[in-house]
């Protein structure tokens, strides 16, 4: 019974961490229209920063803050490349940048021991409580942020650059701010991910992670924070549920993990075909009299 409870707690923690990553992506994609195909870079940089900082003997809490700070910088660098690029171009560019980070981590042994990865020995006290607390905090923050004047402007930017420019808004600054906030949240999730797994390697930074996070956002509903949580839970249930299937159906685990990804891909496709706004669509308020 206690084992089951521990497993359940682990499940909730993983879901919370991915929910934070998905909410960060949703702020960029759903609210601001920044098609970021390199979301995994925040997970990667956040986790690595924490692992390296802990290795150097820095306080665990301080190392989490440090990871958030570094990821904010990464977000700013990413947003600088958005300057005059349209959606598709920037999507590919962010994908490439994330891959460059992964390649550097894989090949430069002096940074973080290359392909071997880094272990995190330190543990945080009340780790599960902290993760759940952080998720609730991020959820509340984003709910407030999207409804605030800032949120209104970035949603306007999503619909096109012309109107905000005509109203005297500096589009680039708003995009940079969005990426910075998204980066900080992503960095927080990455740091907690390092604590959860006690280990980080370049294999955790593959682009497929980005697409799994994308699946959560698409399924849940872009622009609706509650929907994102729902999407994350659905994808996690899918992942965990199919883990117990081999015992029942009797398929090879390798084949099964491939089939699981086929299912996720097909799910993304079907949602885009028949319900592109996702399970919980963005609530559009109208200001008619």
């Amino acid at each position, binding site marked *: 019974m206690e084992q089951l409870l521990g497993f359940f707690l682990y499940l909730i923690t993983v879901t919370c961490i991915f929910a934070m990553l998905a909410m960060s992506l949703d702020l960029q994609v759903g609210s601001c229209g920044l*098609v970021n195909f390199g979301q995994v870079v925040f997970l990667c940089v956040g986790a690595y920063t924490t692992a390296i900082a802990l290795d150097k003997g820095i306080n665990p809490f301080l190392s989490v803050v440090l990871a958030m700070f570094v990821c904010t910088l990464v977000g700013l660098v990413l947003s600088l490349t958005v300057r005059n690029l349209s959606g598709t171009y920037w999507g590919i560019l962010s994908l490439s940048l994330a891959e460059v980070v992964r390649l550097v981590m894989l090949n430069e042994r002096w940074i973080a021991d290359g392909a071997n990865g880094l272990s995190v020995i330190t543990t945080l006290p009340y780790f599960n409580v902290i993760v759940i607390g952080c998720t609730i905090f991020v959820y509340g923050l984003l709910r407030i942020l999207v409804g605030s004047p800032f949120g209104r402007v970035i949603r306007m930017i999503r619909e096109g650059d012309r109107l905000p420019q005509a109203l005297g808004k500096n589009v680039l600054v708003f995009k940079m701010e969005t990426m910075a906030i998204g980066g900080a949240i992503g960095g927080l999730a990455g740091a907690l991910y390092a604590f959860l797994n006690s280990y980080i390697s370049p294999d955790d930074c593959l682009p497929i992670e980005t697409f799994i996070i994308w699946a959560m956002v698409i399924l849940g509903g872009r622009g609706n924070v509650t929907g994102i949580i729902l999407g994350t839970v659905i994808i996690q249930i899918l992942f965990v549920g199919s883990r117990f299937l081999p015992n029942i159906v009797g398929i090879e685990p390798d084949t099964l993990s491939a089939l699981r990804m086929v299912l996720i891909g097909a799910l993304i496709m079907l949602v885009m075909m028949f319900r592109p706004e996702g399970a919980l669509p963005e609530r559009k308020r109208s200001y008619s009299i």
Partner: protein
Amino acid sequence: MPAVIALSPLGHNKTMNVAQVIFNSVITAAELGIIAIGLTLTFSILKFANFAHVETAVLGAYVAYVFNTTLDWNFTIAIIVAVLIMGFVGIVIDRGVFRIMRNKPDVTPMIASLGLAIAIRHGIQAIWGPQHVRFDFEIHQGLKLFGAFITRPQIGIIVIVVIAMIAFHVMLKFTRIGKAMRATATNPELAQACSIDTEKVVRFVWFIGTGFAALGGILFAWDTQLDPYLGFNLVIPVFCVVLIGGIGSVYGAIVGALIVGFAQNLGVALDFSFVLNGFGLFDFVDQVRLPVAYKPAIIYAAVILVLMFRPHGLAKREML
């Protein structure tokens, strides 16, 4: 990636084998270019980035593998049949998935193609397993040409790609369907008003695009080997080629492929010590070379550089 093995001994020599580097660059450019043409063609008509395109290339290679190895057909016939089958698969994909999102904003089909790409890649893995496979053809000794080692498949690849590109050019410029394609790419409404059946054009574009992708995938697998992760290694280089050339520009894609091919192979072959030595003024270091592991990163650097100065790639306008 192809040609890695052929190039790696160069990293230890003081002098660079110029002919070999040029040859490897052309091979890489040919293989990437043929896939990129299909991608940029579908983009110019359908106006979205098709992430599944590269995965259809890998699927095409596996279809050819089945005909060649499992059914024990002649290699040439297997290639032709696989390319034709994949062309029809392209039409089926369009009918099944992308037709109902014709008038949606471009992010919708782009994300759907992402889902399709994930499904195809892992579907391949589920069916054929994660291990490497090879086509069944006779292995001949490599040739030596101007001091460069060349395998016979590589000569075949260059010949096939050149023929395919000339055929494509002729089709685009001199046939009725080519004219209709260019008209639809430039202005769909006007094309429809001129009684061009744009749906027919779209079907044709899917056929050609996916067929070319399959051909490229087969050539890649012929040059090296085939595994389900080939698409993963190809997707960013192919998109970089398209981005550098300008999305939707077919001739830009050929130029982009050459740029990427040469940047990739020169990047690891060049001795960068002259930069650190102050261009010959000093003699700080003996030789500085990029590790071969950074070969993919060179492409990303190339695309970032091009996009910084020309945000829409090298082509002037977004058209065929």
